Structure formats: structure tokens, C-alpha cells
């Protein structure tokens, strides 16, 4: 059971950051994972008054606030045009519309969960994360940082450079956690693949060959897979070959 002593809605990022430094404080994302925990929280920090629930567009990038919901990503025309629909494909299997209207981009990324669909896609797209104190860094760099640090994820920045992108996942049932996530992207002539839910966190492989069979062998051969309740390591390795091969085939069919 989640117990909360104090609820706060800071009016500035600085105020939120100061609250966040206190022991026992927690920044609320969508609260879906947090609510499942048996935990006492001294101060629950709600960022809803900070204007971080918007997707801003500039000529160079999309700036996705931490409080943007997964449903917002799913229905955003610009992001889906840029990614050839991969953005919607990435979140559409996550439970249901009501869940995705609550789950936030910040919450999904901050946990750096192994099963994160969103982390996998943002990683392969070359997105960057902006932390209030930590500054701007790639999603890969962010994923490697310690989860214990007390900072605020402000936004995710996605470059508006033309790309081809595909997102695929394997699940035991339609709205379950993924057994494996796989995102492929071609930018500036380079093919990149990110694979998550191995069950460990997503990792990225760059400079893949443009032959689907070859690419599938490279990815499945280089990555390490593990076992958990959802699937075994060997199964994951086999599924990885299939998803990369299918993803590559779909990527090559996309028009610039």
C-alpha cells in the first residue's frame, strides 16, 4: 500500500528540485508503478503545474515534456509522421487507453525499466533527455546513470531529421509486458537497432548491415539475453532474430 504524508504541487522547477532533495520524497509520474509498491512517501511531488504536459515543435526538434502522456505520443500526428507510425506502435500494446492517459513519458523513462517500450524507441531515434540539474544527454547516457540520483527529468528532445523507423515487440498476451522489444531506425544512412526487455534494459547497436538476415544474426549474436518468468534466454534470442529480420524488411520498404 502506498502511503503519502504530504502532497505538493510546486510552481517552479527549482521548487520541485528542492522538494526532491528531501529524503522520502518522490516525483510523481503517472503513479502507476509507484502505486503498486508498499511504501511510505514523505512528500509526493506533482509536476502538473509546470507546463510539462505539452509537445512543443521547433524546426529542429520535438520537445516532449515529462508530463506528456503515452496516449499523447500515440495520437501525435507530427511524431507519428516522423517515425512512420513507430511512436504509436510502441505504446499501443501498453494495457489500455485509460492507462496510457495516465502514464507519463517522464515516469516511463525515469525508471529505466528493462521492459520499457518507450525507452527502446527513444534510444534508437537518437533522442536526448534534459535533466534539470544534469543537463542534456542522450537516452543511452541517461539509461546508464544511477537511478538513485535526485534530479528532475524535464523533457525528451527528439531531432526532426528525416528517418525511417520501425517498432516491434513480442508479448505473451496482447496487453502484457513485452517479452522482447525491438526498434530499428535509419538516420543519415546508418541503421541502428535497440533491443529491450532482454529482460535487461534496452541497448543500442549501430551501423548494422542493410540485409535483414545478416542484421538479425549480428544483433542476436552480439546481445546477451536472460531468463525470467515471461520467457527464457534461448527463446528471447530466437525471437530477437525474427523481430530484427521483420523490422529490417519493413524499414527497407519505407519511403524517404
Amino acid at each position: 500500500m502506498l502511503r503519502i504524508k504530504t502532497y505538493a504541487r510546486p510552481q517552479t522547477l527549482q521548487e520541485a528540485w528542492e522538494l526532491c532533495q528531501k529524503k522520502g520524497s518522490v516525483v510523481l509520474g503517472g503513479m502507476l508503478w509507484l502505486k503498486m509498491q508498499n511504501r511510505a512517501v514523505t512528500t509526493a511531488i506533482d509536476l502538473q503545474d509546470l507546463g510539462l504536459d505539452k509537445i512543443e515543435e521547433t524546426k529542429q526538434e520535438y520537445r516532449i515534456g515529462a508530463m506528456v502522456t503515452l496516449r499523447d505520443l500515440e495520437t501525435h500526428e507530427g511524431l507519428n509522421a516522423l517515425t512512420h507510425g513507430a511512436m504509436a506502435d510502441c505504446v499501443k500494446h501498453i494495457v489500455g487507453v485509460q492507462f496510457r492517459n495516465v502514464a507519463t513519458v517522464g515516469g516511463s523513462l525515469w525508471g529505466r525499466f528493462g521492459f520499457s517500450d518507450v525507452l527502446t524507441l527513444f534510444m534508437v531515434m537518437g533522442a536526448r533527455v534534459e535533466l534539470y540539474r544534469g543537463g542534456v544527454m542522450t537516452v543511452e547516457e541517461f539509461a546508464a546513470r544511477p537511478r538513485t540520483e535526485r534530479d528532475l527529468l524535464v523533457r525528451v528532445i527528439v531531432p526532426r531529421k528525416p528517418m525511417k523507423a520501425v517498432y516491434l515487440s513480442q508479448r505473451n498476451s496482447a496487453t502484457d509486458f513485452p517479452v522482447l522489444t525491438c526498434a530499428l531506425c535509419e538516420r543519415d544512412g546508418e541503421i541502428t537497432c535497440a533491443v529491450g526487455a532482454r529482460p535487461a534494459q534496452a541497448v543500442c547497436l549501430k551501423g548494422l548491415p542493410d540485409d535483414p538476415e545478416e542484421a538479425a544474426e549480428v544483433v542476436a549474436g552480439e546481445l546477451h539475453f536472460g531468463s525470467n518468468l515471461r520467457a527464457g534466454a534461448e527463446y528471447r534470442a530466437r525471437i530477437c532474430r525474427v523481430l530484427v529480420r521483420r523490422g529490417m524488411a519493413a524499414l527497407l520498404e519505407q519511403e524517404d
Partner: protein
Amino acid sequence: MEIRLTLNGKVVCADVRPDTLLLDFVRQQGCVSVKRGCETANCGLCTVLMDGKPVLSCSTLAARADGHTVQTLEGLQAEAADFVTFIADQGAEQCGFCNPGFVMNTIALLRENPDPTDDDIRAFLAGNLCRCSGYEGQLRGIRAYLDSRKK
């Protein structure tokens, strides 16, 4: 702490604990159509509309709803009346426990997409679980309602 929100068209002020869930709050306000189901954010029984969007009240703090508009099935009877008889005609609501959640999410679907395909309906209602049916009854009911509107 004190919260102030608009619940089914009426302004409600109440003193709540910081960890009171929106689900418990709306039920305390008499909106018992909102059900406690899985409590793991999977079943959709607790669906309410917050600022017009369907959300899971089992995973939302009442404090987060401060300043917002919340609607439950109690406040949407007229809008629901249009299609619930079509669902009942298909025998889709066997025990009926999941029905309010289904109706709330169907309202949200039809507001967003007045003419959905069967796949659109399946995708939008994927977050509503029913332990009695195979979901085909609900789908047939909504389809029958949509078809009746075109006649």
C-alpha cells in the same frame, strides 16, 4: 488537505488525505458506479473521465484531480442511454460488474471517433477486462448501435 473539483457538473470541496485515491473519493461522493477491480491498473473498472479523458481512478490521487473536471457514469446517464440497450440486447453484460467501465470508455471512444471500425473498438476497449464474456457481445452491441445511427 482540501481539494476542489467539478464532479458531474457540481463543484465539490472536500478534505482528503494526501494518499486518498480518486476511486475512493468519488465513491464517497456517492458515485458507486466506479468499481474497485484489480487495483493493478489493468481492468478498467474504475474508469472515470478527467477533463474529458478516460483515466484509471484506482491509480490517480484525489489530490491530483484538484482543479479538474471529473465525470462518472452517474453524470453521463443520458449519453450512455443511447447505446447501453444495444449492449444489453446482445447479452454482453452477464454479471454486469465490468459494465460501467465499458460504458465510460465507450463514451470516450465515440466522442473521439464517432465512426470507429471493429478494430478501432477492440483497440480502444483493450483496457477493459470482462471475466464473463469473450468480448464479442460488447463488440456486437456497439456495432449494432453504430449501424442503427446510420439508418
